[in-house]
């Protein structure tokens, strides 16, 4: 998923500033091209694949003059390249048209749904890293042991399980049987009128306003979907951590540290893990981006009012504007995180410059 390639040229010593400028310039160039690509693909999906996009909006039974007017309004009589230009200018100003389903501008709907998705993905990544990194370290240190096998199997199952199915089973167990978790949604209906969010991150907002009953309720709602996403990212994070740690533990400085008589825990957590930190940051960022995408299915299962649910609801009602708007937003954040983590990796890790 990363866009790292191996052709980084070796700069002259002392050319640090130049190298940074080069990396940033490269980042900007790739970002522009990639975003143009994203817009081109969504344009293709929305305007070129449907035989008549106007009919796709209006339905088969619309009268001919309405169809003709809509075609003109949508600019379908213009040449394709001109349509694409208009499409780009609209998209860049955040105008994705109106949603047929909610009748709001798509951007407005997305602005409301976005924090919900971010809150879920953030908590998921947090859980995944807090559990996944120690597991990976443990597996690397006790390589080949039962612990190692156990971590490996946990990871493999995480790679192989359909997340929406696991979500359904979790609902059966923790909501229906044990009643630990709350009903799908973000808040109980009682709180929906007494609580005014500020940032849209309900946990933060409730804590900030000191409404601890709301905080507890929000927590009971988010913990199940967030744990599922966390498990999903844990699979990836623990596997990569193990691999990075094995790499570090085989280095000579570890032998030197042992020879100095450092304690084993100091060597592992203080030296080896610290040197593996930079690639780990990249991995965690990538898994964060993947969770944004994984949230589409999870949100559907847990009725979580984020962008994923917005997209799937719109899909079921053939609301193309909303689908493409949501796709562009998720795609943009995904690409942004991808590229930023790549840039960060190049800037932080001196080894990427010594080829």
């Amino acid at each position, binding site marked *: 998923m990363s866009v790292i390639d191996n052709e980084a040229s070796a700069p002259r010593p002392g050319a640090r500033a130049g190298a940074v400028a080069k990396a940033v310039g490269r980042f900007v160039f790739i970002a522009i091209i990639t975003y143009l690509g994203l817009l081109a*693909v969504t344009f293709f999906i929305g305007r070129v694949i449907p035989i008549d996009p106007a009919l796709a909006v209006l339905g088969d039974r619309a009268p001919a003059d309405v169809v003709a007017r809509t075609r003109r309004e949508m600019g379908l009589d213009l040449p394709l390249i001109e349509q694409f230009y208009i499409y780009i200018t609209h998209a860049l100003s955040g105008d994705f048209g109106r949603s047929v389903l909610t009748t709001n501008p798509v951007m407005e709907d997305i602005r409301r749904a976005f924090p919900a998705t971010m809150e879920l993905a953030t908590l998921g990544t947090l859980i995944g890293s807090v559990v996944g990194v120690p597991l990976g370290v443990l597996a690397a240190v006790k390589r080949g042991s039962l612990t190692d096998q156990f971590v490996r199997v946990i990871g493999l199952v995480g790679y192989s399980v359909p*997340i929406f199915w696991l979500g359904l089973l979790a609902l059966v167990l923790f909501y229906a049987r044990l009643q630990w978790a709350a009903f799908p949604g973000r808040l109980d209906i009682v709180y929906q009128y007494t609580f005014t969010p500020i940032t849209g991150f309900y946990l933060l907002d409730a804590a900030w306003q000191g409404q601890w009953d709301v905080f507890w309720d929000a927590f009971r709602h988010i913990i199940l979907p967030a744990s599922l996403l966390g498990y999903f990212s844990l699979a990836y994070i623990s596997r990569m951590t193990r691999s990075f740690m094995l790499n570090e533990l085989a280095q000579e400085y570890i032998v030197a540290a042992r020879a100095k008589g450092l304690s084993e825990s100091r060597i592992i957590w203080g030296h080896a893990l610290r040197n593996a930190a930079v690639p780990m940051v990249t991995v965690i960022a990538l898994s964060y981006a993947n969770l944004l995408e994984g949230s589409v299915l999870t949100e559907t299962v847990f009725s979580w009012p984020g962008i994923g649910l917005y997209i799937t609801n719109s899909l079921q009602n053939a609301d193309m504007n909303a689908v493409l708007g949501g796709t562009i937003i998720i795609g943009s954040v995904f690409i942004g995180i991808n590229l930023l983590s790549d840039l960060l990796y190049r800037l932080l890790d001196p080894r990427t410059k010594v080829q």
Partner: protein
Amino acid sequence: MSEMPLTRREWLLSERPATRRQARLGRAYIGWLRFSANRLALIGLFIILAFLLIAALAGVLATHSPYIGDLAGARLLPPGPDHWLGTDDLGRDIYSRILYGSRWTLYVVVLVAIIAAPIGLAVGTVAGYAGGWIDAVLMRITDIFLAFPKLVLALAFVAALGPGIENAIIAIAITSWPPYARIARAETLTVRNSDYIKAVQLMGASPLRIVVRHIMPLCLSSLIVRVTLDMAGIILTAAGLGFLGLGAQPPLPEWGAMIASGRRFVLDQWWVAGVPGFAILIVSLGFNLLGDGLRDALDPRSGDQ
């Protein structure tokens, strides 16, 4: 001097193979030895073989029709002697539907691989061999597709194409070729300046012939490993699309769609959605284990990644 009769194992492991066939079989045997030393990989192989067998023999193994249920007397029955894995809301036998569903899973996986792998192979080898601006343009396009969120993009494609299993396959294939292009390009770069390519060039072979006959075959083994590793992801994406109602459509016994239709009853009749999900888990776990094992066997360098 009479030659000692060789055992089959010695013949296969011979340092000096007498024929090309012996050399090939020997290499395959060494690969198998490495592969079979990995117990998890063997489990994966077993799962996939069982999966293929079930898909082939679904008609023989099934106890009921996958489409026609007993609406009057057998709705939502728990697993029991008549219906080994219970029945769904239309009184259809879940065990039989799971067996037939394996065919659809196989159909999706094979078609996606057949579409996506050659695209990736062609893009990668051409980019790697041609170099220059062709390489730059092709790789930029690959990077763009690589940076996209796959599931969301597949969703949008299916939304435009219309729901259905064929469209889901096309959408998944469109989003899954870029890694193959990268691998093929990397492999091409390692061989493009080697002596045997120079020799073929001197003999006057066209670039097309060189790419197709002399470069592509070398990319195949790493490509196969990667495709095997991706199979689980393809299955999960297809199941996700099916779950959202965008993949296979209702009467088809596709596992993702089966979970979706069982979703309404999951709190009381967990098996309707539970069993097909378990089938997905087992098969994609099998592909993951097999892929890991193949990678370790074919490419010892990345054994610990």
